[in-house]
């Protein structure tokens, strides 16, 4: 459990004045993760919104050391940093204790960077990979990704006379990470900051790789006004569209949060422009299908976690 009074004294990972959009969840997520502990971090990021907006040369918003290499190789790049750290510590050339974090959006993690991520998880270095998942290619203008939900409007899977937007469900990347049997995997949301910070703490304390998939609402891509970011993140959790849980060593599943009353998915869908077309009567079956998928997934998760329905 994080203690607000203690957190208040810690150094922020990102300085103000970065150029992320107002209401973007990803800097909130990064700051929450960064507050999780006092050992200095070295952070790497895939190409994406976060990287371009925090490092417009000659400026940087990073109070820690930061490295960006390319789009699909955040995990491999930080693997190199961590290998250098171990080697140089062994040779007595680096004295400080450090922790390592690799970042990527859903494009850089679910899609183009999946191979690099899987390689890192299999090799087992002590690195936290955190995916800030805004569920589409937002940096290039809201194109569909492997994380985009079914029925979502994107610029490459647009809504039209013959189309409801994206036709497929997103891949279950969290489960893919779990299948690597690494020490720690979790889903988190910036609306539940205490949970996110506690999970980050845990992720950075295990002797090996950790993966966190964090939902990152995007005002521009999701179509809502920027003050509603945390509200949206909370709705995703309360509708069980984005459940919060953690898995240790690929085997021990633990539910982090169970909504007192599970809200209907329409509460979540109707709050966002990207799903607006689903509210039309002719798309009622699609909404039903989405609700059923959420219900089935939630039931399966409860079972895995040994929690009661």
């Amino acid at each position, binding site marked *: 459990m994080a203690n607000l009074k203690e957190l208040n004294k810690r150094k922020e990972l990102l300085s103000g004045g970065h150029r992320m959009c107002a209401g973007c969840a990803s800097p909130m997520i990064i700051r929450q993760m960064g507050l999780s502990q006092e050992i200095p971090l070295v952070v790497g990021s895939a190409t994406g919104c976060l990287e371009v907006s925090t*490092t417009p*040369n000659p400026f*940087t918003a990073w109070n820690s*050391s930061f490295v960006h290499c*390319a789009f699909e*190789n955040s995990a491999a790049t930080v693997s*190199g940093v961590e290998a*250098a750290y171990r080697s*140089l510590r062994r040779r007595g050339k680096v004295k400080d204790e*450090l922790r390592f974090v690799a970042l990527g959006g859903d494009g850089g993690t679910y899609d183009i960077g999946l191979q690099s991520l899987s390689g890192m998880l299999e090799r087992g270095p002590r690195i936290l990979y955190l995916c800030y998942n805004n569920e589409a290619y937002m940096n290039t203008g809201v194109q569909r990704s492997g994380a985009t939900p079914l029925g979502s409007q994107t610029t490459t899977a647009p809504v039209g006379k013959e189309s409801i937007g994206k036709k497929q469900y997103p891949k279950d990347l969290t489960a893919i990470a779990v299948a690597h049997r690494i020490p720690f995997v979790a889903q988190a949301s910036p609306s539940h900051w205490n949970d996110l910070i506690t999970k980050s703490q845990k992720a950075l304390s295990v002797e090996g790789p950790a993966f966190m998939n964090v939902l990152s609402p995007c005002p521009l891509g999701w179509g809502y006004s920027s003050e509603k970011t945390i509200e949206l993140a909370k709705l995703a959790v309360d509708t069980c569209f984005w459940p919060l849980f953690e898995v240790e060593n690929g085997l021990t599943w633990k539910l982090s949060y169970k909504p007192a009353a599970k809200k209907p998915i329409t509460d979540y869908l109707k709050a966002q422009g990207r799903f607006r077309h689903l509210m039309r009567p002719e798309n009622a079956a699609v909404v039903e299908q989405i609700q059923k998928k959420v219900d089935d997934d939630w039931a399966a998760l409860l079972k895995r976690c040994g929690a009661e329905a």
Partner: protein
Amino acid sequence: MSKKLLALTGNDAAAYAMKQIDPDVVAAYPITPQTSLMEKFAQFVADGESNTEIVLVESEHSAMSACVGASCAGARVMTATSSQGLALMWEVVYIASSYRLPIVMPLVNRALSGPINIHCDHSDAMGIRDSGWIQLWAENAQEVYDNLLQAIRIAENPDVLLPVVVNYDGFIISHAIENMYIYDNDEVKKFVGEYKPKYTLLDPKKPTTFGSFDLPDYYFEHRRQMAGAMSGSKKVIADVAKEFSKICGREYKFIEGYKLEDAEIVIVALGSTVGTARAVVDDLREKGVKAGILKIRVFRPFPEEEIASALKDKKAVAVLDRADALNAVGGPIFDEVRSGLYKKSNTPVVNYIYGLGGRDMGLAEINKVYSDLADIAKTGKADSVRNLVTYLGVRD
């Protein structure tokens, strides 16, 4: 100066150099014909003869990415690859040089797909000729070893800070056993010294951002600085060679002549073919033909001045390219050599594309080139004899 004579393959020679360099981090992925190099080096590490941290990644793209990360962290870093492996790294190869990271990479030259082929040609190296990597070329296992040791010093020089690729022919050099000298461990360690990076990711008191986003107001200046570093590397390459001569007993140059001085007809080449050409030249000299060779050791930075000065008074020159530029003009070395001669002389220059995908380049083929050159020398005109560009040893 103490050294011992060993019988090693080119890949063993490279592994031996890596063991003595003992880099902080090596990230690699297996590919033919590089594989036996990394196997040998991994065995050195397994036996405790090298203290390197090896990162065995899941692709060459990740290999070069891990090298970039490790080098930004202040480590001395090496990798090695061939052909498709380099093609997969290509994106990150450019990033490595633009971040000014002194990574050193043996490149065991192999033809690029397609069609898929595992044998030697130079299409892989020529594909990264404009990437900002310094390129050294070896004729044999000894030069693989010597070039690698020098490469570390060139790359890490604060006036250079560019990565270096050390090229050698797949199978022909990488897998053939040759007698070669290995230098005393302490002497080599003293020569390569310690890498002292100016910036690193691992100093929390001095947080540093690497790989920031360059817009039109900075990108051009950064690329211009790279161009300056490449030009400036010439002095460093020469200085390092001079210092290294105290260990190896010979001073490496940008180009090397064989019976070049009084030669009238000259072949320009790089890699193992130079060795074959030496035998042909010896034979021709016995018959009174004034044949010679100009070997290119440093291809990037391109030694235009040295090449042009050495060739300007020759009667006929043939440039051998083991890669085709497919530009409907000629091979990559030919284009640059001819351009270098443009203001200096009217020496006729022709081009031979040879040995693609491991096609043999034997004495007969090289004899044919010299015989063409002799005909050209008689008339002083290249086109009186044959096309400007000839595909040698191919079924047309």
